[in-house]
């Protein structure tokens, strides 16, 4: 079974600060990582491959420095990777279409796996958009997946209900964080990943030159959270008395 995992490099949102003078989130100089749930998608792909054989290709639309982080996915067990540059101002339309065209170019793909959403924007658009563009079935929010030759079945968390959906391949799956525990590669695997190829594909070879974004960002405002940050410790009786006192003063114990 040949699997493509779409993985995104994101800024570590936990490290973002808001610049008080511009009131904008500072995104430069923040550590980057592969979006958490995309690693769950890679892990699931590896488990399917362990059962059914085949090849795993990681595909990323992103900046050149994403390659370092993509190596982590190769070390986990993906076989090769494709990096497609992210055009300036690209929206989900452009990113998903680039990935869809990349999947077509790769050819002979049975499954596409994505995380349910990336942790920076948390829109969850890429998986369903790829499925729509390719007109493939989509099994979103999967927390349990069973693949066999030519077909796949998933238990899906749809919030108010659990849905079991079956599809014939090719299909797109998006997975939740609960589906598995992504493995940590061994030192040998990390060293070995250096030999695995990361291909650079261009926007023009995918026929996407001049494609215009459908959504434009007009502004990005920072949201600061001001809290009192009063912490009581050591003497717990005293701490609890203090806290109860404060809560009463705030009128919260009525």
């Amino acid at each position: 079974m040949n699997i493509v995992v779409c993985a995104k490099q994101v800024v570590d949102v936990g490290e973002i600060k808001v610049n008080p003078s511009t009131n904008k989130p500072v995104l430069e100089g923040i550590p980057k990582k592969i979006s958490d749930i995309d690693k769950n998608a890679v892990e699931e792909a590896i488990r399917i491959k362990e059962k059914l054989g085949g090849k795993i290709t990681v595909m990323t639309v992103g900046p050149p420095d994403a390659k370092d982080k993509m190596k982590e996915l190769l070390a986990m067990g993906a076989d090769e990777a494709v990096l497609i540059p992210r055009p300036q101002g690209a929206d989900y339309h452009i990113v998903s279409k680039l990935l869809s065209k990349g999947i077509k170019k790769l050819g002979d793909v049975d499954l596409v796996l994505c995380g349910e959403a990336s942790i920076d924007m948390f829109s969850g658009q890429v998986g369903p958009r790829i499925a729509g563009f390719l007109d493939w079935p989509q099994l979103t929010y999967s927390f349990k997946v069973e693949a066999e030759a030519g077909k796949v079945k998933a238990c899906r968390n749809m919030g108010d209900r659990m849905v079991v959906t079956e599809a014939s391949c090719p299909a797109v799956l998006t997975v939740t964080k609960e589906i598995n525990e992504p493995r940590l590669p061994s030192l040998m695997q990390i060293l070995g990943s250096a030999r695995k190829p990361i291909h650079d594909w261009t926007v023009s070879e995918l026929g996407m030159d001049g494609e215009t974004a459908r959504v434009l960002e007009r502004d990005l405002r920072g949201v600061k959270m001001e809290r009192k940050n009063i912490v009581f410790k050591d003497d717990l009786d005293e701490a609890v008395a203090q806290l109860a006192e404060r809560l009463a003063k705030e009128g919260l114990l009525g």
Partner: protein
Amino acid sequence: MPRDWPKRAFWGDIMVVVYSDLKRNGFELLSKARELADKRGNKVCAVVIGKDAGTQAQEYIQRGADMVIVTGSSMEHFNAEDVSDILEVVVKEERPEIVLIASTKDGKELAPRLASKLDAGCISDANKIYVDGDSILAERVVYSGNGIAVEQFGSFPGIITVPGKAFDPLPIDPGRTGEVVNRDIVLKQQRSSIVDVQKMVSEGVNVEEAEKIVSCGRGFKKSDDLKLIEELARVMNGNTLGCSRPIAADLKWLSEDHWVGLSGHKVKPKLYIACGISGQIQHVAGMRDSGIIVAINKDADAPIFNSADYGIVGDLYQVIPKLIEAIRQKM
């Protein structure tokens, strides 16, 4: 097609997509659609999909729609493949400027699939939508609550998904009239099929409207220990429990209606007490609009203290019983 509404050559109107089983969401979308359409001199078209869709058409008109298209009534269960195929046809015929869809998980998997079929833009989870000059702008929370992105469409139609309770429904206006159109669209043979649907266990709590929430995380060692926070909630007269994702999603100690955070519920109680919750940004994203935030955690370096007004560093198994006692005396 029995209708005298002219087919439009331009992109206008606001379309609202409603599933027949999610009425309240539909009413909220209709009220926003009505506001936008009135400002633009356009009409509001509701597309009602699913079993028994037709029976509710009049109510959608009374809640703000000028036209209701009833379709997909043969569909047994919601599935994004069929619904996006139906909407692709409807949107191409009606040419709305904006399509509003609820940000339920169904809506969140439907909207982008539909968008890609229409080569359209899609803005997810917009909690503000307004007219600004010639454009319609949408705002949404990004970077786990650190930012608000203001976005605009570069082409029509534009699809927006809207979280629950972002807008208040309009009251019923029995005098409103409108047109109901039945539109049967032949469904394709899909390569996927639903083999089972089970209702998730739900304890029927509504954390989003709670005034006081006592919330638990993995600091609790076993589900039985949640009695502690139940008791705390009780003495505070705010018996709503919240929790972090692992408590609902992995351990399943509480149902998902308690789950607070980026991927769970967004809450804004007057008081939020986080017990044994580390305070990762994805959790904080769901409760950062709370009035007063209290943290109880044994690790003085836990990030939750940065997001808290008051904190106690200590073992929750010792702190909570003491706190229950102290509060009992104050009440």
